[in-house]
């Protein structure tokens, strides 16, 4: 069953085109990772999908019905984890969950039970009666997530839920997403962290400048750029003759430098590693060298020409 569908959605802010004929679908039980560089339109896409902002043209369906049919009923089936921590700092963790659960229509014993379950899911049971103003960043983010899942939504939309959290909380959040998915919840997950998408997503959508430029499973996407190979080389000294030598090699498509590490993108073919090593050895000392298979990061870089984490928030 298709949970969410966008067809030819266009959204402009003034003259700035933010979503340009975006079409996508999400099936029940999927974890879809939405990737894109800063300003790609990811947050706008999420807001449009949940009816928080109107669109200029196109159609959006959620749970098989046009979004505008019964927006309040539709919102009740979604849990939205915003990029900003949106809990009330003057209510305890439990009170926050009771507030949000109550708005979603939970009452009495079922509310209490769901609040307890949500606290357990995000590992905040011990802190239930504390104010979030005393929480660490990671704990606040976990509470933010708990508030979105207290009513057991069919679809959870997470907009960069791990920004600024410690590794322990990040692991906890990712495990929570997996557990929710195992229980049948569909998840749309936006992040700047490629490794998170690789860890949890069953399908990836890459958005750039308001266009969906690629979508599929991670292996599908990696397959698209299998014609390339990446070689990393650390040298004692990065010199211009070294770089010229490398650039002039047959099959080399690009050379970039990061400190003393040189990244070389070549066409797939035998002998690349030997040729690069020989050229580098002529120009100075080689500390180490390795050839890497393409990753999702490489797919992203190849398709958008940008690093995923190249600055501030969208």
């Amino acid at each position, binding site marked *: 069953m298709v949970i969410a569908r966008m067809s030819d959605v266009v959204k402009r802010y003034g003259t700035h085109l933010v979503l340009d004929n975006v079409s996508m679908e999400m099936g029940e039980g999927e974890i879809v990772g939405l990737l894109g560089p800063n300003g790609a339109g990811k947050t706008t896409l999420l807001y449009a999908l949940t009816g928080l902002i109107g669109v200029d043209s196109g159609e959006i369906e959620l749970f098989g019905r046009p979004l505008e049919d019964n927006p309040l009923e539709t919102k009740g089936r979604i849990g939205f984890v*915003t990029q900003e921590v*949106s809990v*009330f700092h*003057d*209510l305890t963790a439990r*009170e926050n969950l009771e507030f949000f659960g*109550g*708005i*979603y229509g939970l009452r009495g014993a079922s509310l209490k039970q769901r609040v307890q379950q949500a606290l357990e899911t995000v590992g905040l049971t011990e802190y239930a009666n504390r104010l979030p103003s005393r929480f660490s960043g990671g704990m606040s983010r976990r509470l933010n997530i708990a508030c979105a899942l207290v009513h057991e939504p069919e679809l959870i939309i997470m907009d960069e839920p791990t920004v600024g959290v410690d590794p322990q909380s990040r692991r906890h959040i990712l495990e929570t997403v997996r557990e929710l998915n195992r229980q049948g919840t569909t998840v749309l997950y936006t992040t700047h962290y490629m490794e998170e998408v690789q860890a949890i997503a069953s399908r990836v959508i890459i958005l750039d400048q308001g266009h969906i430029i690629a979508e599929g499973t991670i292996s599908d996407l990696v397959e698209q750029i299998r014609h390339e190979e990446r070689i990393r080389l650390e040298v004692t000294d990065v010199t211009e003759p070294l770089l010229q030598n490398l650039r002039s090699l047959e099959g080399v498509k690009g050379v970039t430098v990061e400190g003393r590490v040189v990244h070389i993108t070549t066409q797939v073919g035998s002998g690349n590693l030997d040729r690069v090593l020989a050229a580098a050895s002529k120009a100075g000392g080689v500390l180490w060298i390795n050839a890497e298979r393409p990753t999702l990061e490489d797919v992203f870089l190849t398709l958008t020409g940008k690093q995923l984490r190249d600055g501030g928030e969208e």
Partner: protein
Amino acid sequence: MLLRASNYMFRRLLRGYLGLAILVVLPLALISVIGLVVGDGIDPKLGIPAIDGVAMIIIFAFQLFGGNYTLDFLRSDLFSPRKWRLYSLPYPPFYHALSILISSSLFSALQGFAMVLYTHWVYRVRWGSFLSILVLLVFFSALNQLVYMLIALGVKSDKLGERLGEVYGLGSFALAGIWFQLPNTTVFNFLTKYGNPLSLSRNVMLYIMTGRYGNEALYSLAILLLASVALVWASIYFGRRKLA
């Protein structure tokens, strides 16, 4: 849903210790200090014990600033990035604004009423009917919250909103003749008596406390009612535009 939301809003208000300090502790301290200065004297203008007049004016004057509760909560919940979370709920945003308005009105009125009771027990201020005072406080508090709600809905800049709130409060002080005597002209005399919310509530209060000044109280109540209707209408108009 509205009651449930208001309940949680009320808890949030209770935890705003700075608000309690400014809007309860400070006025009580002022009443105590000024009460010591005026002693057992009689207010020559009003014909009531001076401490009664001081308590009445200070309690109602601080009510003018109670609208900051509404201003702060509207800003933090509906005009900040948090608004997207609230907009994503199956709960129209104006319900949330209304829950803020209701809770803040009741909370501010109860703060005022707590001060009324305190001054009655400690300073023997003769307030008359407590029920009437509570009703007036709720009404006056709602009016002030509406003024601040309108500021929040109509002004984009936070700073400008705060300044306008101060102009409303301090301007009412000035027009009520609290700080200095206004010129003795027909216009200023009218403004001092009926031209600001503080004087209007004082007129009603005097009637409740003494049983005198019935006509002034009636006119004042009518003006307050008309002002409230106008504010509700304006809030709905701006609210529809800003909270749609």
